[in-house]
């Protein structure tokens, strides 16, 4: 198990050091600093072994978090724990920065004492932790006995992520379907790989212990239901999507999903990520990039890039950015574009073309002439792919939320009284076309 946990600033100074096991000494703190943070070469693995001790690290802006052990531990668990640790800290004091860590070091030690015992991760749900670890000193001493046992049963209980007795005057929930669409296309326009990784983020402001049921146009579910009425299958069959795989927040009853493919849960209060999913079939690729690069002699390149939007004309894509890499020996660039603004950024070795808005089924074009300095460098220019960024108001996977039903058996509100909001946002992930 985890033997110790250290947090360093960018200089390698220790901000937090908590040792859980006897086999980890103070020298481990220095070993990591010398061998990883101060290493001359770039770090080439998130796991470093120094003198039979393993160091697992993650970086958040310029802060290093390192978990140390001498045992053969479950590496995935250690990293998941480090991410969780970051989430917990962020939930308590916002951005993870040197200043915030120094300002909250007592709190961090308290959290570390609670969420890692002898190196074993314990309940690390912020919802539960916040009931008894607060920034304003400890609450529990003024608690009644009942409150105390409520805390402990929540921390150890089955529904560790939600406390009892939450009340809202207005029961409301927000669902965001956030997708990032990834593409790698060959210069000839052949899709080398494409997938959508999506997240359903829920913000719930619901009273009591509401039982929720979430439904979407999952092909498997629709086909199951559609068996009765053939008519409906043909209608909805087109709209259903094949989900390759999905994972759920720990509040979702996985065994029920496995047997019935229904998604039921009692949500944590506030914002959380209900599910993540991935699809690879029938993806709507919002943009197509058509590159044309021509080498004119040794000192000149001609680049022409056409982008085509491929969605309903009534919808608008936003924040469109096309990044066309240029060789390192570029001496000058001349650009002409029909729409938006284009600039050559020498420091980034790229032409950046920005378009604020673009409707569906449109086309736009940029041409550039790149002057090159003659070099005798034998190394050929690697031609990095042309990448794109954008945001569209629909889900490229085709996912639709069908329903989110809320039941609260004890309190007196029904599904109809809950105000529900749904929003779809599709963003570019790694959206690249090779040229």
């Amino acid at each position, binding site marked *: 198990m985890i033997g110790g946990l250290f947090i360093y600033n960018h200089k390698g100074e*220790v901000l*937090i*050091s908590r*040792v*859980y*096991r*006897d086999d980890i000494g103070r020298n481990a*703190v220095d070993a990591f600093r010398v061998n990883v943070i101060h290493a001359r070469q770039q770090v*080439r*693995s998130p*796991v470093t072994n120094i003198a039979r001790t393993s160091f697992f690290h*993650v970086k958040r802006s310029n802060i290093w978090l390192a978990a140390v052990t001498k045992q053969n531990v*479950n590496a*995935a*668990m250690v*990293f*998941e*724990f480090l991410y969780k640790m970051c989430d917990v800290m962020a939930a308590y004091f916002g951005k993870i920065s040197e*200043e915030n860590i120094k*300002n909250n*070091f*007592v709190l961090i*030690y308290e959290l570390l*004492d609670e969420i890692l*015992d*002898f190196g*074993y991760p*314990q*309940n690390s749900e912020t919802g539960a932790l916040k009931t008894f670890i607060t920034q304003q000193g*400890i609450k*529990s001493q003024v608690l009644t006995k009942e409150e*105390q046992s409520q*805390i*402990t*049963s929540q*921390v*150890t*209980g*089955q529904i*560790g992520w939600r406390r009892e007795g939450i009340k809202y005057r207005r029961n409301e929930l927000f669902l965001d379907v956030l997708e990032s669409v990834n593409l*790698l296309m060959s210069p000839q326009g052949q899709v*080398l*790989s494409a997938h959508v990784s999506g997240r359903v983020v829920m913000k719930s402001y619901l009273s009591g212990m509401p039982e929720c049921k979430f439904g979407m146009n999952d092909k498997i579910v629709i086909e199951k239901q559609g068996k009765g009425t053939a008519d409906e299958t043909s209608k909805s069959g087109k709209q259903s999507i094949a989900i*390759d*795989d999905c*994972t*759920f927040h*720990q509040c979702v*009853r*996985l*065994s029920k*999903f496995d047997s019935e493919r229904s998604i039921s849960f009692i949500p944590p209060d506030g914002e959380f*990520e209900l599910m993540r999913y*991935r699809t690879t079939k029938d993806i709507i690729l919002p943009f197509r990039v058509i590159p044309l690069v021509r080498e004119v002699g040794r000192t000149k390149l001609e680049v022409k890039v056409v982008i085509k939007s491929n969605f309903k004309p009534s919808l608008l894509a936003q924040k469109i950015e096309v990044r066309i890499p240029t060789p390192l020996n570029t001496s000058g660039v001349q650009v002409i574009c029909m729409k938006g603004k284009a600039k050559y950024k020498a420091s980034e070795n790229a032409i950046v073309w920005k378009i604020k808005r673009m409707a569906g089924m449109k086309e736009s074009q940029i041409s550039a002439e790149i002057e090159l300095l003659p070099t005798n460098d*034998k190394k050929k220019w*690697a*031609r*990095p792919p042309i990448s794109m960024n954008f945001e569209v108001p629909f889900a490229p996977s085709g996912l639709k939320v069908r329903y989110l039903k809320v039941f609260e058996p004890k309190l007196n509100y029904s599904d109809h009284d809950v105000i529900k909001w749904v929003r779809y946002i599709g963003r570019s992930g*790694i959206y690249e076309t*090779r040229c």
Partner: protein
Amino acid sequence: MTDSKYFTTTKKGEIFELKAELNSDKKEKKKEAVKKVIASMTVGKDVSALFPDVVNCMQTDNLELKKLVYLYLMNYAKSQPDMAIMAVNTFVKDCEDPNPLIRALAVRTMGCIRVDKITEYLCEPLRKCLKDEDPYVRKTAAVCVAKLHDINAQLVEDQGFLDTLKDLISDSNPMVVANAVAALSEIAESHPSSNLLDLNPQSINKLLTALNECTEWGQIFILDCLANYTPKDDREAQSICERVTPRLSHANSAVVLSAVKVLMKFMEMLSKDLDYYGTLLKKLAPPLVTLLSAEPELQYVALRNINLIVQKRPEILKHEMKVFFVKYNDPIYVKLEKLDIMIRLASQANIAQVLAELKEYATEVDVDFVRKAVRAIGRCAIKVEQSAERCVSTLLDLIQTKVNYVVQEAIVVIKDIFRKYPNKYESVIATLCENLDSLDEPEARAAMIWIVGEYAERIDNADELLESFLEGFHDESTQVQLQLLTAIVKLFLKKPTETQELVQQVLSLATQIGDPSFGAPPAAAVPARLGAPISSGLSDLFDLTSGVGTLSGSYVAPKAVWLPAMKAKGLEISGTFTRQVGSISMDLQLTNKALQVMTDFAIQFNRNSFGLAPAAPLQVHAPLSPNQTVETSLPLNTVGSVMKMEPLNNLQVAVKNNIDVFYFSTLYPLHILFVEDGKMDRQMFLATWKDIPNENEAQFQIRDCALNAETVSSKLQSSNIFTIAKRNVEGQDMLYQSLKLTNGIWVLAELRIQPGNTSFMLSLKCRAPEVSQHVYQAYETILKN
């Protein structure tokens, strides 16, 4: 309110000031002071001098202050054991506190204080806490048993805590169950024999129930524990699998990976004809692919695991090649792992796509990555025969880029392709030769020289090319020198008339590399330094396979030339070592290449590491006439005088005949010294293994050996390496072996064999660690022949 100010106290007399503040009457001031102490402790300052003052602050009802004091105690109690006793009373009292959070805090902290006297006092409160009415206290107490066991295992057993811990597996609260499982698993690890985690269908059922209800971390503890269980039949295995599969949709990647581990293991027990088997296989791929969209560090861990999974069951991911394609912004560690998996998944069906990708990668920036990509192209050629031609043309394209390290790497892999598919792609040699001058890495130079030597008859100016390398012969690395030597000899055999001069030149150059400190006559120095590799290089040329598989089952190396005729006025000696039923002998073949008759042979050994000496005079009965060869066997014993040699298995030999005395030296394989009674008793083995310090342990990897555990055992046994025990851990076979050398040195070995993986891990422990390297070489030789 900010706490960062506590980090900035660096003035003199700080400790003194803190002392005063700690003893202040005002609560706030006290707390401030403790915070400063903790801050100093964090940055590594020694604040142990404040121990009594800090401990005095412990008696407080302010929980925040109490936690800070506990933190201090955990750090310094060990350095001040006597004073730590002062804290005991408060701990004991806190364990009785009405507030469960305080009870748990006390028992949690007490377990972290590694002072014997405190440990004694811990037992009673711990016993109570294990049966506490509050689950929060019980789950903390469960972990505390593991802590106590780490400090004093005997005490935990004497006090019966292990039984209480076992009872907690049936606790009503899932988190208590999870922590109890974690604690028991850890304790069980240090007592491999004790049947502590006595898993049976009933307790497994309890674990599976808790699995649905506990925290994500608890699920990991339980799944990792399940992975160590062996179901009694396939039906049980299937029912566990069915209940574990829902975990594959968990948001926590570690839960998913642990579930995959359990499923991979239990699948072994399922019959392949079962419908369920197929369903399960299909269910495994999507979650593994999803892991690749996790954060980069987790992707790395997932990829390392996937690498093992595709070796075991390539069918799971065979259609998912695309997800392992490298993205431009992947961190380098992710890129390198992906590349490995791509090669493993490459097949005839997807090779075109893979090659197109690899070609892209070969133009990237990171040198390591590019090199690996080029190597990968070579491996594809060797793996998928149909693709070889395409690979070669891709490699040629890459050579045209003239990027120095790409060219060198490409030449190294083309050499391998030539070896695998001889006489197929020689048309490219001309292109390769054009790049001769740009090669500066030994491996690439050696590869190029090999190619020139191998295809000397097709290269018009082969002699010129090789000669060009000779100029800087002394500056080359050994690898290149050896290759050059072999290549020129090959050339000589193919075109004897034109190249005689070249051969003489290289041989004379090679003989000049004597290490003067070696103390051997200069003529013998060449084989001494270059002995073994030269002969192996030459065995490419001469058919010297006579000795294999004769006599006993023990491996006998083919005879190698020890003393070339040029060095010994026409006498050529080649030989090898054998061991059969307890006796060692040296089999020699003497050839007379001179023009006069040779008589009066005699042999003598220099002192050597294991006291090897001739047990009888050299028997060459009749005089040896020109162009005649005689074979003889010289029995050896190990009672000669001993002197440590460098390398250890070096043997210097002098042979006399009527013409002169000749010296040469040779390396003998260590396995001729492995005695027949090298089988150690099991108990003795365990004790000895523990007894030998860890520094003496040496680890080696035996690559490209596709034998299973049984064959390995029997092969090794015939060379007197005895398998004492065999164990199966997580699908790997672990063989525990022993052997004894003629001088009584024992060597203990642990050989880890993974089905489907052709690399074995060999760990050797020995009181004389310098023999390990040679024992490993003996393993290599025995297993690969």
